[in-house]
């Protein structure tokens, strides 16, 4: 139960209540939901089982991060450890921007108590509060958000250092049920909202926007990439975090049921609660035109929509200051459980493969990520956060998921993989998933990648859709990401010496 709560705590976070509605709006509402559910069934659930199995298998070799775990899969192809770099690189990239958004939730917790947004009646005013916080309006400063960022960052470092297992599990056991109760209360309030700005902007039309299927959108690779990316992001698969958590499991632990339970808990938070709060509220307060401009990329970032609409909803309920305080504070707690988990692969890599003490590993991780967050904060207006989210929160996850499934089903071998998944499991995975794991998931992922490269790859590479003023900043961001990746490749090469030593000592023992 504890590990289910820890993984659910890692999965349930800002992705459910902030990123999901933003992705839905940016990808045309109902057009997004069909690829989303297909991705859940054919990518999310199978990859959840794959990661739990791979992690537990690698844990048996005392390896807790992707390079070491991949290395343990086969004796024949030792280069495959380098595919595991993404399993350390990806979570660091996500951590760097995720922690900044987490600090916004802490700032809004404070704003709720001090009544900063209590008197603001419309979306334009609420957008101004967010822009002011992020230093995007004339005369505004970053001092407020920076203070909240420092508090958030320090708190994360403290939790990472002191309370990894007991701390996170205890936090999840308390925070998650309360978050669900508040989520249900807010959902009920949103579903009973009356149109305010325009009589035709009703909750029913907001739900229609979200749930009306649009089969025409299935031809756009961008929507499939976004839907698959959201599934990966929200379930924390394709990141590398579950590999590290699962490496602590025992051989007899039931990963089939644990994986499925954390998936269903996360989806309840995302689709039932997240989908019924922000999008219908955004429709009531902002109308369809704003959602359309979001789709075209002209208004609000992926994560911003919730910060504009949620305070408007909270202003409509009694004791809005108290509700607002609890809501944003619980989002903050949900964010912490996720961001702390994002640090685990890098920390485990340093501890396990370089025998660095936990204290030193946390210090190194803290310094590196602290430096990397600075451009995200100070150059926010040039789109650095969105750029990191696109690579770290979408493409790297899909790429890493593709690598994992191919290694597991084809290199490790489907027969061994099937046995490994079922070790300790009371429940059998439906037999057709054997074919899904071997053929459907890898082909599906390769098709998404292939079509995306064909349709969008070149335009993304030449930064076609970006403002000319932003291009130099984005280019530098990409170069830094590449250099960082290269540094990790060198570190993995150095670490592989220890893999050999451990393999030798294990052979001696046997």
């Amino acid at each position: 139960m504890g590990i289910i709560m820890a993984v659910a705590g890692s999965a349930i976070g800002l992705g459910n209540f902030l990123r999901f509605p933003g992705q839905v709006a940016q990808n045309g509402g109902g057009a997004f939901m069909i690829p989303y559910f297909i991705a859940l069934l054919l990518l999310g659930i199978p990859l959840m089982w794959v990661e739990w199995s791979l992690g537990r298998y690698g844990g048996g070799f005392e390896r807790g991060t992707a390079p070491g775990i991949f290395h343990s899969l086969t004796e024949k192809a030792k280069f495959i450890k380098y595919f595991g770099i993404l399993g350390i690189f990806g979570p660091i990239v996500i951590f760097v921007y995720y922690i900044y958004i987490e600090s916004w939730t802490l700032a809004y917790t404070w704003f709720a108590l001090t009544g900063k947004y209590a008197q603001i009646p419309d979306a334009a005013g609420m957008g101004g509060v967010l822009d002011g916080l992020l230093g995007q309006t004339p005369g505004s400063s970053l001092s407020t958000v920076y203070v909240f960022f420092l508090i958030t960052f320090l708190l994360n470092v403290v939790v990472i250092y002191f309370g990894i297992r007991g701390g996170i599990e205890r936090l999840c056991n308390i925070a998650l049920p309360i978050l669900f109760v508040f989520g249900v209360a807010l959902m009920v309030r949103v579903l009973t909202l009356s149109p305010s700005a325009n009589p035709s902007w009703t909750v029913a039309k907001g739900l229609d926007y979200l749930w009306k299927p649009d089969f025409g959108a299935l031809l756009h690779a961008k929507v499939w990439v976004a839907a698959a990316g959201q599934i990966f992001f929200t379930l924390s698969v394709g990141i590398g975090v579950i590999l590290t958590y699962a490496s602590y499991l025992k051989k007899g632990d039931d990963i089939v049921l644990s994986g499925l339970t954390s998936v269903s808990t996360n989806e309840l938070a995302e689709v039932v609660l997240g989908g019924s709060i922000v999008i219908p509220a955004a429709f009531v307060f902002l109308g369809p035109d704003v959602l359309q401009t979001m789709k075209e990329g002209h208004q609000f970032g992926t994560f911003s929509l919730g910060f504009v609409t949620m305070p408007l909803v909270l202003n409509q309920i009694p004791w809005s200051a108290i509700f607002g305080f609890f809501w944003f504070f619980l989002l903050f707690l949900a964010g912490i459980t996720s961001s702390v988990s994002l640090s685990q692969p890098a920390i485990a890599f340093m501890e396990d493969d370089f025998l660095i003490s936990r204290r030193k590993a946390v210090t190194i991780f803290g310094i590196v990520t602290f430096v990397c967050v600075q451009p995200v904060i100070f150059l926010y207006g040039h789109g650095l956060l969105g750029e990191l989210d696109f690579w770290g929160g979408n493409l790297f996850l899909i790429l890493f998921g593709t690598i994992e499934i191919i290694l597991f089903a084809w290199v490790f071998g489907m027969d061994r993989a099937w046995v490994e998944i079922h070790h300790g499991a009371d429940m059998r995975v439906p037999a057709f998933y054997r074919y899904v794991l071997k053929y459907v998931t890898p082909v599906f992922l390769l098709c998404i990648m292939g079509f995306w490269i064909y349709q969008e790859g070149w335009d993304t590479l030449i930064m076609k859709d970006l403002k000319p003023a932003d291009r130099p900043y984005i280019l530098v961001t990409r170069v830094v990401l590449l250099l960082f990746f290269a540094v990790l490749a060198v570190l993995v090469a150095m670490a592989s010496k220890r893999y050999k030593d451990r393999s030798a000592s294990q052979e001696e023992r046997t």
Partner: protein
Amino acid sequence: MSLSASIFLILSWVFIIGLMIFCFRRVFSKKEMD
């Protein structure tokens, strides 16, 4: 709200809530056995 949107919403919710009930019933019965 259109008929297709209503059907899609209901099917999705039933699937997710049903899956969750199924999983947690098994988790708790397993916990009791342990």
